[in-house]
């Protein structure tokens, strides 16, 4: 039995797909996937304007061509499993765009807690951008700047500082 099937989250070591090369991450944001189970779902493939996401069939796991991805984030907004993220590196700092469907929505410049895959606070980050994409159908996208470049491999949620 897979460990994640008991715990409900991935340890960084359990992510089987290769992540984007660092040089690419320094150019612009790139979509990564934590959709690791074969379930019948493919809107990310349909929505990608660059055809950077492919699947053998509807039950297969999505494969992202990092060289083609331009980081537009459409897949992050549509993914029903909220399992896609954008990551990037700028001046040695990490940048993550994550789907967020809670209230209140943080605004640009707000400081927020950065949470890992099990909801633990790993530090604080600054919101660079909040995109509210027709919330009835899509998830809002929050882009946060993290102190460490390595945070992009761990941070998957934010918490509003009260």
């Amino acid at each position: 039995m897979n460990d994640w099937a008991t715990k409900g989250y991935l340890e960084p070591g359990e992510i089987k797909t290769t992540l984007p090369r660092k040089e690419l991450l320094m150019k612009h944001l790139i979509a990564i996937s934590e959709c690791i189970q074969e379930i019948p779902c493919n809107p990310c493939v349909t929505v990608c304007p660059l055809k950077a996401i492919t699947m053998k069939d509807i039950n297969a796991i999505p494969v992202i061509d990092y060289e083609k991805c331009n980081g537009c984030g459409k897949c992050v907004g549509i993914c029903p499993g909220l399992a896609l993220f954008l990551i990037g590196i700028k001046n040695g700092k990490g940048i993550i765009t994550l789907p967020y469907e809670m209230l209140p929505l943080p605004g640009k410049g707000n400081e927020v807690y950065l949470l890992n895959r099990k909801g633990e606070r790993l530090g604080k980050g600054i919101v660079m951008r909040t995109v509210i994409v027709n919330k009835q159908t899509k998830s809002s996208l929050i882009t946060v700047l993290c102190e460490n470049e390595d945070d992009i491999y761990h941070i998957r949620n934010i918490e509003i500082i009260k």
Partner: protein
Amino acid sequence: MREIQEHPILKLARGKEIWIKFSGTPIRAYENETVAMALYREGIDVFTESSKLHRPRGMFCAIGKCSSCMMRVNGIPNVRTCILPAREGMVIEKQDMYGKLPESIEDFPEPCEIYTDIVIVGAGPAGLSAANILKDFNIRVLLVEQNPKLGGQLIKQTHKFFGSENEMAGTRGFEIANILIQNIKDSNINYKTDSTAFGFYPDSTLAIFQNNQLLKVHSKYFFFATGASEKMIPFAGNDVPGVFGAGAAQTMMNVFGIKPGKDILMVGAGNVGLIVSYQLLQAGINVKAVIEAMPKIGGYFVHAAKLRRFGVPILTGTTIKEVMGTKRVEKAISIGLDEEFKEIEGSEKEWNVDTVCLSTGLMPSVNLLSQAGCTLKYVSSLGGYVPIRNRELRTSRETIYVAGDVSGIEEASTAMVEGKIASLAILEKIGYATGREKEKNIEELQRLREGPFSSKIVESLGEVTYE
């Protein structure tokens, strides 16, 4: 008192304020709200009491399937208040024992006979997609729904749907419902809400009641898309008000904008348990934990991950042992299970919660099919008794078709495709040419079921599908 003030996904709007009476006390209600929801929103947990031991009873399913919320309304007993729209001046009382009918029956209009080509029972994903196909043909269609709104359980699904473009994947369930419902409203289809089909008689009359009137429906074809009900599991205190079906909590939040509780313990980590827990967070409610008797999480990993990243623990190998509370849940006790599902002594854990939600499986609502004499078979992985059918969803009776959860518990996306297949099969039987549409949908259904998650379903469906 228990209103959700703002919601990240839903626009919450309440109707005009009206007043009803509960045990002599005036209670505020809103138009478009059901009686049970108004009472619950105003802080009333106990609706009635059990007939033998006089234990308090509250709501359980909130969608007109169980009998937990039955009360006397304007003198008439055994009314399911969870699906009864509140009206100005309604008199609601706790029912005494089994309830007595009033002496005079002037409130009951004369029965009415309806003749149609197809009657669809249930306007959820399966029934609505069938109606959406049938609306374009020159046939008489009657669509009946027990709840005050069309849409079945789709209207409370605030998450984005899986599947492909054909099933509008990536769109939230209630948005899919809105589209399907609008198409029906714009068509010539005769639809009736607040209409409960309660009997199928030997002369093939389908009996329905709507606002105390009996409708006798005579139809060439019957399409049962009656859905499913939530399973109750045995544990001490499982009848204490505040123990809800997870779907009931979802109805309260996402259809009526009401908080089911403050602190929740979710029992069951299948997709329903995981999705509803996440939606509870969206409504600003504290989910203490999700417990699951099996050694692993039953639902999709992505749903579990969504919840875990908000810090909600998911405890596998753990079940509910007891719920305490006199008039409302005050505490719950969970217990660990070993590999043989035996309770591990000393592994009890106490939870300070006011609400326990059960997402321990669904059971197909086959009652009418059973009355109609359709052959049923018990298949546990499909949820219980399900009708034997062919690949076009025709039951053992020539004129009776099924689709959706009533034919075996699955997903809304497969229910929609099944609804299309069965309605196209009926059209072909009537004599309409529909091209390759039916085959295309049969192939689509196969595609959706190809993954490892569906292997058990496919195997079980094999046991009940004949050529």
